[in-house]
């Protein structure tokens, strides 16, 4: 079987990223990549450094050292705006919505539509918001209430719509299903599938192994700020992945697949060779 993703160039690569807070090495030499039309799960224990890693990609933190490559070009991401300019959108763990604003106001926050006098054109924004949200979630009705009045799933719709509205190519989702009901989780899952078909690359952080297994094509597992390994979802079982998360060890039968920067695979092959090996399932 050939994976079409691997014939394309990666959308984003993060190479050898380091960052520490005081004495804590939150991310310590991690490299990950993401291809178009691919969902990649980032897994790990609490405090493994997942959120920190993707915050570097979304411009919330700046790496102490390391390189971010977008579309094969070096990208200098110093703040949220830079990330956006590179079509990288983030949906944060704590839902970065302003609770007191309504859906449309949140969707356009920081990039408002203005009329010819420079005044906000709320009607135009609401119109566009209705369009985008309807596509994502036909049941969405509360356009003029503050988003604090919305359910978790509806809020997630707003957050995702916000990313879509600005033509994201890379979507980062930190715990998109945390605090969501069964039905809403399913809805977010469908959303992710749809975005994938549209050719977006999605980085998905989640504690729920089931969600990640259902949605992801590949997995990056982190522990204590280091990358344990990168594997294709179809190559591993839940137990394999649990072992990686808890013990920080690649499963024996997959040692040869250990991704770039994997700490316990000293002879980890370079990117290209790695993806070739992964084309011939063991």
């Amino acid at each position, binding site marked *: 079987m050939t994976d079409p993703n691997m014939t394309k160039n990666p959308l984003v690569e993060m190479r050898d990223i380091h960052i520490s807070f005081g004495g804590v090495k939150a991310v310590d030499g991690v490299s990950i990549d993401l291809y178009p039309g691919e969902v990649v799960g980032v897994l790990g224990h609490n405090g493994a450094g997942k959120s920190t890693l993707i915050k570097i990609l979304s411009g919330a933190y700046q790496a102490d050292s390391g390189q971010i490559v977008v579309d094969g070009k070096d990208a200098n991401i110093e703040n949220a705006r830079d990330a*956006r300019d590179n079509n990288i959108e983030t949906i944060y763990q704590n839902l970065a919505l302003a609770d007191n604003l309504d859906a449309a106001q949140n969707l356009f926050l920081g990039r408002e539509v203005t009329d010819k006098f420079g005044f906000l054109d709320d009607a135009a924004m609401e119109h566009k918001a209705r369009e985008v949200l309807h596509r994502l979630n036909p049941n969405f009705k509360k356009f003029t209430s503050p988003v*604090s*009045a919305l359910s978790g799933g509806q809020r997630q719709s707003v957050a995702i719509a916000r990313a879509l509205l600005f033509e994201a190519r890379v979507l980062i989702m930190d715990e998109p299903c945390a605090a969501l009901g069964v039905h809403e989780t399913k809805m977010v899952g469908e959303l992710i599938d749809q975005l994938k078909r549209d050719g977006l690359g999605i980085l998905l952080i989640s504690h729920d192994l089931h969600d990640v297994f259902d949605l992801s094509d590949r997995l990056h597992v982190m522990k204590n700020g280091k990358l344990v390994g990168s594997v294709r979802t179809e190559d591993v079982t839940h137990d394999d992945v649990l072992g990686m998360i808890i013990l920080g060890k690649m499963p024996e039968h997959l040692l040869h697949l250990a991704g770039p920067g994997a700490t316990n695979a000293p002879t980890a092959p370079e990117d290209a060779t790695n993806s070739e090996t992964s084309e011939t399932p063991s």
Partner: protein
Amino acid sequence: MSRLLSKMEVDRRLVGLAVVLLIIWVGFDIASGGRFITPRNIFNLSVQTASVAVMACGMVLIIVTRHIDLSVGAILGVLAMLMGVVQTDLLPQFLDYNHPMTWILTLLAGIVIGAVIGGIQGAAVGYLGVPAFIVTLGGLLVWRGAAWWVTQGRTVAPLDHNFILLGGGIEGTIGATWSWIVALIAIVAIIYAAIMDRRRRLSFEFPVKPVWAEYTNTIIKAGLVLIAIATLNAYHLPTRAAERLLENKGIPVTPENLEISHGIPIPLLIVALVAIVLTIVVKRTRFGRYVFAIGGNPQAAELAGINVKRMTVAVFALMGVLCAISAAISSARLQSAGNDLGTLDELRVIAAVVIGGTSLAGGVGTIYGALIGALVMQSLQSGMALLGVDTSLQSIVIGLVLVLAVFSDKYFHRRYSDPTA
């Protein structure tokens, strides 16, 4: 009733406040034997409220961004002193006494210095990360001290003749004819805004309120404008002042001629102007949207690319500008600038804003609410003064009302609850 209100998309909190205000007014009117709801008292009330009302508009933005400004009274004090010196000592060296440019340059100087003072405090809050409570508590002491230093405690008087008009004395009103013209403009604007808003919503096929609700809304608003202007016009100049005015103009003094209306006092016009401008800023500009976004979730605002630090400086600088305008109004009203002007105003302003429904947790607040809050506070104070309640009891009552207002707000409205739902 509540279904009716929601159909009309009226802010319930606004209705509640209006009812409270009405109860206070009627209560004092009955208790004082009909001396409270009179054109004269309403006129005075509007003039007395003006200074606090102007500052309250700015304080809404400060509190919405989750900050507080305890220094507004002291800033008002130092700006009043500086403006006093500018118009009585500085400008007369270059311009004639009561030159028409004097008041303009004076006010301009006050506004610039106010913006700088506010900006410095905002920078300490935004960039240095010192809590606003501390920065402005320090500011309270600093600027009050500075107010004394400007003239070593000497009260500055008399002020420029034109400047004094800003305080709304006998000449500081615009008269009956102009008042009606203002009323007309306001009503046309109200109708125009309603029509445009509806058209725009219809053009996007958004839901609109029923037509009868639009009519009722518009008629109530226009009616309030008419009642307010009619009341202010019904307050006539005292006979002596009217006689003098007629003599100056060379018009024969007859009983009919003597009935000269005050009309809208200039400070009330200033309040209206400030409130309208700030309401537009809040509702229709990026700046206003960002103020509320920061109040709702500072982290989200930052992540959306909003420069929160710079916004903080801007909001505090705006507060400084409004302090300058208030300083002009209050010193003009007293026709002198003393270094204790504005003492305790910070508390009146914050109380007005909080009574007006602005949440101390940030993210929620309205300009019009703050105006009504200021009016409620001043009505209580004036009403008690009218009844001869002594000042110590007045402060006790006002303090209790403030606590009660915040409590009832917490009790009746959940945080961020949809005001129109």
